[in-house]
């Protein structure tokens, strides 16, 4: 073993996992084949709301390769329960969510039957021909429409389509603040619905072994233990250890692979009933109507300031469209992950928010990258810009004078959270410098009145990630713990396996976690591997979402490693015949202080731990440790993002010209990985502002079935991004780390939206338009505004 002195933490190391991905050797769920495997195809509802009046299995039985057709009745007869909700609120109305519809379908794409055949093509052929009779029912797609008088009822047991009413903050204090306001603005905002669109479609492969009663499920999951818990304990009613869930390489998640889906239940039951492995892999057209969607808020926001431009209060009223069913985290997203973030980075004396959760005949909505925080950030930052424009203040300066100051942490907001640490002004200054902000404003002035106008969006965001501690989230309704586990297994040769309950689906855990371990153990990173994504191998874990892996999973790892080094030091001291206090662990070896040459390597220690020929009295052999880490609080990354757009006023085309940001997620484990996550996040957030839109018609027909109808950002839509960071460690965890996976998305939608609206405000005093800023929408708005101001051209020239 080579001694080493380098520090791995903080280095931009190339990723250990990449060789398999770049050579095509990654193993995603759909790549797995089991002997005798059958294929399932889902028959999906073409109606947003309908009663199923008949399914004629004989219409496909006897077709080539067809083995079975499973309906809702079959699923009920097999004893499978509905898929539960994982976050409860007071008086929450939860309509049953069956794996296969029982009597009624509630959104386009709801599963009506499962066809199993010998090949995928045969299963899809038959699924397309299965005779199903429907009686169409009235349906509704928009949250506010579902609340309207006389609106169609989505579920009989959800009166008025209201799943919950929730509020946070002190309404009296807020009203008082508004009473003494110098100025108020009111903005109506739609945070429209999105499809997460991981490039790997979801897939599941189930195998039931009748002899042992054990199930194996390969599935595209961000949190295999959560899937195991729900499927075993709530749906199938079997002991957890009878179900092993493996989530191998997963091709992106962005939230959409957290949740418990119908198809996983279907393939598990089909495998049990048919005695063979059964695989299902989504077509992209299925992903559009079956992956949980994101966002979909209609809000009214009012902001009050005093004569000096100091913020006095924010009033928010939001209708959150939850879709047809309440899925795993759905009730948490527009409440605790949104309402509690409405304070942003500002010193608000008062904030009050009301949220109405509404069911509609649309695909369910749950956490999508950022989950509640992008919605909060968009609302605050858009409203702040409207106010800055109204006040005639520079938007960046308006933010600066309202920031919470570094000496005010920990900071109690009026909406429940206590921020751990923060220093917002340096990030703003750096971002403005990076983008040469005064030059941009001068250019904007020069371009005024031309056909290429400029807009600059400056936003300062804060996010809460590493949801915790478990006792608190339990009080708030979570039916889950929010700790993480790690197991460190040292082999006799000194090679090390790390096991984590968090899951990597692009985040680079296989590199970042060994970086933490290599420094703690003082051994080369090549000797360390990370194992994840298999409930058969991990102690337990809650998975990867909400930017929790580094702060919670990484901290659990650090604690397990500390147990290893503590024991290793004892063994080394014993072997060196020295007292433990006299042994130092540095540069890759355990050494007796002041006695050069008196040393033991990590290999020496690991070998003796396993040979156990000479260990301290009473010590157990082996070198293995497990830690379970439950954080004391959330962590609160923050930053400033600046977007620059150019708008062609002749065509309405918006071009994102430059983008720069300064993020603070505490110390970086691997800057290359952190920066990559910021890049991807910016692209997804900009996608919402400019192109992406999960549009339904009024009856709940989803208007996109392929990427032809749903625009995700492509390479030539985006510029290169400028990134930088400040470092404000979290005092709460042993690594001081926060989280970065969602920051880009949380910030960039608001930044790009503000840039577009900044251009339109400066050009023609348009205060607000809803996203996405399609060319037609922007062109029409400019045209109407110019006509209104007497600057328009004749209608037909």
């Amino acid at each position, binding site marked *: 073993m080579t001694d080493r002195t380098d520090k791995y933490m903080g280095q931009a190391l190339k990723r250990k996992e990449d060789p398999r991905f770049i050579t095509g050797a990654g193993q995603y769920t759909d790549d797995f084949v089991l002997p005798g495997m059958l294929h399932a195809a889902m028959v999906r509802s073409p109606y947003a709301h309908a009663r199923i009046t008949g399914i004629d299995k004989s219409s496909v039985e006897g077709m080539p390769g067809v083995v079975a057709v499973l309906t809702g009745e079959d699923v009920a007869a097999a004893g499978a329960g509905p898929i539960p909700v994982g976050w409860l609120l007071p008086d929450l109305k939860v309509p049953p969510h069956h794996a296969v519809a029982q009597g009624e379908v509630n959104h386009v794409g709801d599963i009506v039957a499962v066809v199993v055949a010998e090949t995928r093509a045969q299963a899809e052929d038959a699924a397309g021909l299965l005779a199903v009779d429907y009686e169409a029912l009235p349906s509704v797609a928009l949250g506010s429409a579902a609340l309207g008088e006389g609106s169609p009822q989505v579920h009989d047991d959800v009166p008025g389509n209201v799943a919950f009413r929730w509020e946070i903050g002190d309404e009296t204090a807020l009203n008082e603040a508004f009473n003494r306001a110098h100025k108020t603005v009111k903005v109506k905002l739609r945070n429209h619905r999105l499809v997460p669109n991981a*490039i790997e479609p979801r897939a599941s492969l189930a195998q039931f072994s009748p002899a042992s009663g054990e199930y194996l499920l390969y599935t595209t999951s961000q949190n295999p233990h959560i899937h195991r818990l729900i499927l075993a304990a709530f749906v199938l009613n079997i002991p957890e250890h009878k179900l092993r869930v493996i989530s191998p390489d997963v091709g992106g998640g962005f939230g959409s692979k957290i949740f418990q889906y119908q198809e996983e239940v279907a393939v598990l039951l089909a495998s049990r009933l048919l005695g063979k492995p059964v695989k299902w892999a989504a077509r992209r057209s299925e992903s559009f109507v079956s992956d949980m969607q994101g966002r979909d808020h209609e809000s009214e926001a009012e902001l009050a300031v005093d004569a000096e431009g100091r913020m006095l209060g924010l009033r928010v009223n939001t209708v959150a469209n939850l879709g047809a069913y309440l899925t795993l985290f759905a009730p948490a997203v527009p409440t605790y992950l949104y309402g509690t973030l409405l304070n942003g980075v500002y010193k608000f004396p008062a904030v009050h928010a009301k949220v109405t959760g509404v069911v509609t005949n649309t695909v369910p909505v749950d956490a999508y990258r950022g989950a509640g925080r992008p919605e909060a950030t968009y609302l605050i930052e858009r409203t702040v810009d409207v106010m800055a424009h109204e006040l005639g203040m520079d938007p960046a300066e308006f933010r600066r004078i309202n920031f919470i100051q570094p000496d005010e942490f920990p900071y109690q907001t009026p909406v429940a959270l206590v921020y751990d640490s923060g220093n917002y002004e340096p990030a703003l200054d750096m971002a403005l410098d990076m983008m040469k902000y005064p030059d941009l404003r001068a250019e904007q002035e020069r371009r005024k009145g031309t056909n290429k106008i400029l807009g600059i969006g400056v936003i300062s965001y804060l996010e809460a990630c590493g949801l915790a501690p478990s006792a608190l989230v339990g009080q708030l309704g979570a039916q889950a713990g929010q700790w993480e586990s790690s197991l460190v297994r040292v082999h006799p040769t000194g090679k090390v396996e790390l096991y984590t309950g968090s899951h990597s689906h*692009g985040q680079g855990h296989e590199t970042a976690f060994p970086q933490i371990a290599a420094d703690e153990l003082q051994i080369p990173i090549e000797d360390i591997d990370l194992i994840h994504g298999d409930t058969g191998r991990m102690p337990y874990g809650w998975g990867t979402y909400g930017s929790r892996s580094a702060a919670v999973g990484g901290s659990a790892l650090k604690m397990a490693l500390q147990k290893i080094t503590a024991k290793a030091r004892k063994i080394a001291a014993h072997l060196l015949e020295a007292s433990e206090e006299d042994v130092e662990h540095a540069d890759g070896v355990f050494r007796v202080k002041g006695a050069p040459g008196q040393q033991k390597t990590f290999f020496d220690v690991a070998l003796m731990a396993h040979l156990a020929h000479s260990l301290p009295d009473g010590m157990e052999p082996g070198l293995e440790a497990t830690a379970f880490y439950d954080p004391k609080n959330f962590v609160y990354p923050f930053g400033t993002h600046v977007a620059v757009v150019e708008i062609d006023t002749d065509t309405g085309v918006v071009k994102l010209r430059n983008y720069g940001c300064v993020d603070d997620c505490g110390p970086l484990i691997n800057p290359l990985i952190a920066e990559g996550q910021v890049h991807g996040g910016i692209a997804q957030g900009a996608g919402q502002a400019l192109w992406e839109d999960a549009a339904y018609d009024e009856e709940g027909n989803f208007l996109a079935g392929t990427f032809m109808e749903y625009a995700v950002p492509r390479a030539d839509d985006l510029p290169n991004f400028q990134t930088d960071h400040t470092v404000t460690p979290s005092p709460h965890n042993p690594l001081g780390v926060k989280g970065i996976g969602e920051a880009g998305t949380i910030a960039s939608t608001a930044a790009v939206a503000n840039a577009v609206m900044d251009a339109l405000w400066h050009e023609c005093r348009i205060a607000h338009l809803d996203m996405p800023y399609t060319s037609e929408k922007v062109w029409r708005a400019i045209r109407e505004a110019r006509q209104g101001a007497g600057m328009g051209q004749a209608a037909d020239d």
Partner: protein
Amino acid sequence: MNVTVTVNGKAHTRDVEPRTLLVHFLREDLGLTGTHVGCDTSQCGACTVHLNGDAVKSCTVLAVQADGMEVTTIEGLGTAADLHPLQAGFWEKHGLQCGFCTPGMIMSAAELLRHDPDPSEATIRHHLEGNYCRCTGYHNIVLAVQHAAAAMREREAGQAADD
């Protein structure tokens, strides 16, 4: 129907349904799972392979159309021990995260570099617009292609000097 396709230098003869797509032939009949299916409708580019040297989306080509032709997949481009400069470039510049779009992205970029050894950023972005990536924001993909292009030009120059 019987088809014979030479994939990564090796001829394979199989009996396929006429409707079998090349991507399914590669993945299911030959077990070459590096070529991925992301959208079924030829937008995302995760299934890009080379057919007689041209980059094609293998979800748009029937296996029978490839009869008698040469296919190169990501598995045939380079190995872990001997990476193609593009594979090395994607690794070096962190041009991937989940890795699902990466094989298609690399195969598409390989065609670009065959025609244009020194592409501008705009050219790279334009050429890759048929390959969707949801993780990287494309920033590092552009850097990866530029890195590979420089390495390939250097290699070319070295070979020319040796001649």
